[in-house]
Structures are given as structure tokens and as C-alpha cells.
């Protein structure tokens, strides 16, 4: 394992922030291993994403804009990745720990008969050996995992590394279409509901609402407004999602997303264990709850006891006033 291959996820030609975070870290890993960084960008508008990537420390950017990549689900992308990985040779492959990243990583691992490790929050190189650190069992243990064999695939949790611009060689090469393939999963329709918005996984600030919020409306008014004032995204507990107040994609916790934002503000959330496992690695946790004895008080950095309906709008107001 010498080189580092990164799969760059992009939305309409704009690399997702997690991919820029990975690109920034990859160079450090590659340097420690004595190798270089190869980025792989696939699908419609891949060239635009490749251009954006030139501001980050990558050596070679492999691009394919083959229409089959978007016309068929996943298999063409796996073929391109497999061919590129084999052409590069023994490497550590970094994918984002997102839906598509997980899917691609696991299939590539099978193609290469390689080990894979998920939800990685740090990568350490020691004496030429790569160790991937990930929180397991709801964040109660931190494991370090090494790979045996030529390839290893690590899925990196968003917000684990800082995205830092610093241009590399950024040589763009076009990938050749893998020969003799037929694709079986046709994409009949692709619906983008939240293009510009950062998902809760990627946002560095998350304002999450729970049952205490009482209905759908505050999610799009007072919580959204607070999130906007802090440049963050809106999350939710399962109680709020199950009540239909907000979409499942916003759910944080064991059956939702596991996130590590810089700031997590839990509004009207009690802090059940299944919720806690999804957000306990946030750098700072603030809770607003009318009850001073809730479980979240045991692990929040600050619990403000009071009524969310009056505190949240006042908080947005003060934050905005502070900025102006």
C-alpha cells in the first residue's frame, strides 16, 4: 500500500465538502507512505468537479463522464473504480462515509478481495503501516484497524478532517471505458430534493429538534432560522421524524445518522441512548430543555433550562445582532 486513491463525490459538478476534507488529508497520508494521491471523479459534470479539485493537494485526477455512469446504478462506477485501482496498484482507498461512498467502497472491496473499515474518523501512518481509527459500539470504544493485503478501503466520516486549499500537481487524465460490460440496474428517474443544502452529516453546526418542538412548523421557522444564523443544518430526533414533522434524512441517532459537528444544539430532545450514540462525538453540545433533569444534561457541555419557543428565536436574534 503506497498510493492513496480517493473517490470524489460531487453534486452537479460541485465536490461535496467531505470529499474536499478527504482530499486535504490524503496528501499527508500519501507523503508518509512515499506515494501520491489519485482522485477519481465520475459522471455528469465530473470535469467541473475535477477543475474545483485542482485547488486541493491531489497529484492525478482521473475523470470519466461516460453517460452510462448516471444511466445505470452503481455498476459502471464500480467498474471504473476497479480498473483505476488496479492500474494504480497497491493503495489505500478513501471513500466518504455517505450512502454512495459506502455502497461503492463495499463493492470495490469485494472486487479487490480487500478489507474495508467504516466510519473512520482518523487515519494514522506509522512505519509504513496504515491504521484507521473509528468509534464503535455507539462511540463507547475507539478501534484502530489495519489492513492485510495490497488494498484497504476506508470510509471517512464527514467533519473528521479540515478541508484546506493547497494546490497539487492536479494532472487530469481521462479514464478509459472498461470493455465488455453490460449494466443491469437502470435509473428511470433521479430526484434531487436537497441539492444546495448540506446534509446533517456534513454540516459543522446542527440544530436538532425533538418531541418538545411539538409539530412540523417550528422546524421550518424557528429552528431553520437559528440554523441559518449559524450557517448550520437542521437535524431531528426519531420522535420528531416518526411523528412526520421532518424527513428521515434529518434523523440523528442509532437508526439515523451518526454525526460529528463542531456544534450540536439539541432543542426539546431528552437525550435517549439511541439519540446519544448518533451525536456524542460532536465537539460542543448545547441543549435547551424545560426539564433540568433530562439525560442530555449528563453529557451536554451546557444545558439551558427554559422554554424553547422563547429561547430559540431570542438566540437567533442575538447571534444575528452579534454579527452585524
Amino acid at each position, binding site marked *: 500500500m503506497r498510493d492513496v486513491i480517493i473517490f470524489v463525490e460531487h453534486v452537479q459538478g460541485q465536490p461535496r465538502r467531505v470529499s474536499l476534507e478527504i482530499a486535504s488529508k490524503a496528501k499527508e497520508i500519501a507523503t508518509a507512505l512515499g506515494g501520491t494521491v489519485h482522485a477519481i471523479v465520475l459522471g455528469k459534470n465530473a470535469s467541473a468537479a475535477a477543475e474545483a479539485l485542482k485547488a486541493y493537494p491531489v497529484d492525478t485526477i482521473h475523470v470519466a463522464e461516460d453517460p452510462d455512469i448516471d444511466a445505470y446504478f452503481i455498476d459502471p462506477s464500480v467498474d471504473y473504480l476497479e480498473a483505476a485501482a488496479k492500474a494504480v496498484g497497491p493503495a489505500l482507498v478513501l471513500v466518504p462515509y*455517505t450512502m454512495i461512498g459506502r455502497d461503492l467502497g463495499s463493492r470495490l472491496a469485494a472486487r479487490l478481495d480487500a*478489507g474495508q*473499515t467504516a466510519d473512520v474518523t482518523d487515519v494514522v501512518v506509522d512505519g509504513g503501516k496504515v491504521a484507521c481509527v473509528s468509534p464503535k459500539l455507539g462511540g463507547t470504544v475507539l478501534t484502530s484497524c*489495519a489492513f492485510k493485503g495490497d488494498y484497504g478501503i476506508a470510509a471517512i466520516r464527514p467533519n473528521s478532517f479540515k478541508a484546506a486549499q493547497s494546490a497539487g500537481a492536479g494532472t487530469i487524465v481521462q479514464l478509459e471505458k472498461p470493455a465488455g460490460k453490460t449494466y443491469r440496474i437502470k435509473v*428511470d428517474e433521479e430526484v434531487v430534493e436537497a441539492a444546495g443544502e448540506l446534509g446533517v452529516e456534513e454540516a459543522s453546526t446542527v440544530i436538532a429538534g425533538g418531541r418538545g418542538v411539538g409539530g412540523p412548523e417550528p422546524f421550518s421557522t424557528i429552528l431553520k432560522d437559528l440554523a441559518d444564523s449559524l450557517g448550520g443544518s437542521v437535524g431531528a430526533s426519531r420522535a420528531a421524524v416518526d411523528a412526520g414533522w421532518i424527513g428521515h434524512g434529518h434523523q440523528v441517532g*442509532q*437508526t439515523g445518522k451518526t454525526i460529528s459537528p*463542531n456544534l450540536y444544539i439539541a432543542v426539546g430532545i431528552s437525550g435517549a441512548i439511541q439519540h446519544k450514540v448518533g451525536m456524542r462525538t460532536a465537539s460542543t453540545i448545547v441543549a435547551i430543555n424545560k426539564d433540568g433533569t433530562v439525560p442530555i444534561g449528563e453529557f451536554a457541555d451546557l444545558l439551558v433550562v427554559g422554554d424553547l419557543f422563547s429561547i430559540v428565536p*431570542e438566540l437567533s436574534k442575538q447571534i444575528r445582532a452579534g454579527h452585524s
Partner: protein
Amino acid sequence: MKILVTVKLVPDTTAEKRIDPSTKRLVRTGVETVLNPFDEYAIEAALQLKEKAGGDTTVTIVTLAPESGKEIVRKALAMGADDALMISDPAAEGSDVWGTAYALAQAIKKNGFDLVIAGTQSTDSTTGELPGALAEYLGVPGVTYVRKLDLDGTALKAERETDTGYAKVSTDLPALVSVTKSINEPRYPSLKGIMGAKKKTIAVQTLADAGVDKPIGSDAARTEVTNLETPPARGKGQIFEAADAVAGATKIVEFLRERKLV
């Protein structure tokens, strides 16, 4: 039609979990084991397809797990699955995603299948990486994160969740799908179902019986746990009783300023 549902046996989330420092594995003794909650959606999806298709459609539960988990597998049978296949072998201990996917694929191929349904992720590892690898080793189309599933003969139509919305896709059987929790509401086993499950077959096979032709246990794993640490516990922070909204908001702003978050 043969539908196979892969299920994992996991420690109860609320149970105290411990890792044995010498083997670097989860200590499963003394911890209550349950069906991975995500897999109940997969079982329900299979049962609904069976009810719709009728005829000779069967639903078989497949798991790679120690034989001690047999009674938990029975819960899946009580929901209405026809039978189960357990691959239980001490030589499978310590297998990683690679080994689990490889072994399950061999067993599933040997058993025969038209459709494999998996859960999206497991609550103990939450990797969600098995279904994709399994589809590869089975050599069939693999449609993940499915929230709506329709079969018409061998034509499969699905709606899958994506990070930015959703997509409608179509393919043909044989195939694998993994389902999300928005696909259905899993049923509770009825009393009749629980009684009936006692008579259903749970075939227990060794790796060799299941047709697994390579070692898959800890020595063969492609990954190795080299270190385990307990992260520093999150201490109890401050609790501030806000006299009114202004006091509460001011406290938060001051706190965020101290931490340079605003």
C-alpha cells in the same frame, strides 16, 4: 420464487457492552442478543412479497452466527418466514465484512435464490457495507436503500433513497435489495405464529456444509484490530436555569463566544 432474508444477531443496544482486550472482540456472553432491528424491515418486505405473489413463494432466513442464537432466529420464523439457514462454525469467529460477505454468498448460492433482501445496516457495527459486497460475490444486481419495492414476474422496480433525494430504478431477478426503515412497519409475531415457529426447520450448517471454500475466520480476515481505547467520557457540563428567554439566549451566546463558535 425463493426469497432469502439475511439477518444479523446483535447485542441489545441498551445493554452494557465490553470488548475483550485479549481477543479485541465484543464479549457476547452475558449480553442479551436480539435480531438486528433493521432486519425486521427486510423480513416484513419479504413476507409482503410472498403474500402478494402467493403460489410456491418461500421466505428463508439466513444468518452467519453462533448456534446459541437459534432461539432468536425463531423470532423471524414467528413473524412468518418459512425456514432458516444458520451458518454456525467456530472457524467463522472473528470474520470481518469480507469474510462474512464471502461466506454468506457461497451459502446463498448453494441454497439457490431469486431475491435476497438485507437490512441497511446493523446496530452493532453500523457499517452498512455488507449488502454491496454480498451483491458482488453473488454476481447479481444489488439495489441498496430501497424504500419501495415492486415485483412483476422477474421485473423488479424500486425506489431508493439517496443523499440528495431519491431515485427510481429497475432491474431483473435474480437480485439483491437492502431496505430502509421507511419501507414498511414490521409486524409483531402472532400467538399462532409463535406456536407455529416451534415446528419450523432451522438448518444449522458448518462452513464446509454451506459450500464455503476458503478460510474466513480471524486469521483470514482482511482487517486486523490493532488497538482499542475507551474515548474520554463526556463530562457533565453546566446546567443553567434561565429566568427568561433573554437570560437563556445570552448565556448560550456567551458560552459559544468562549469556545469561539460564534
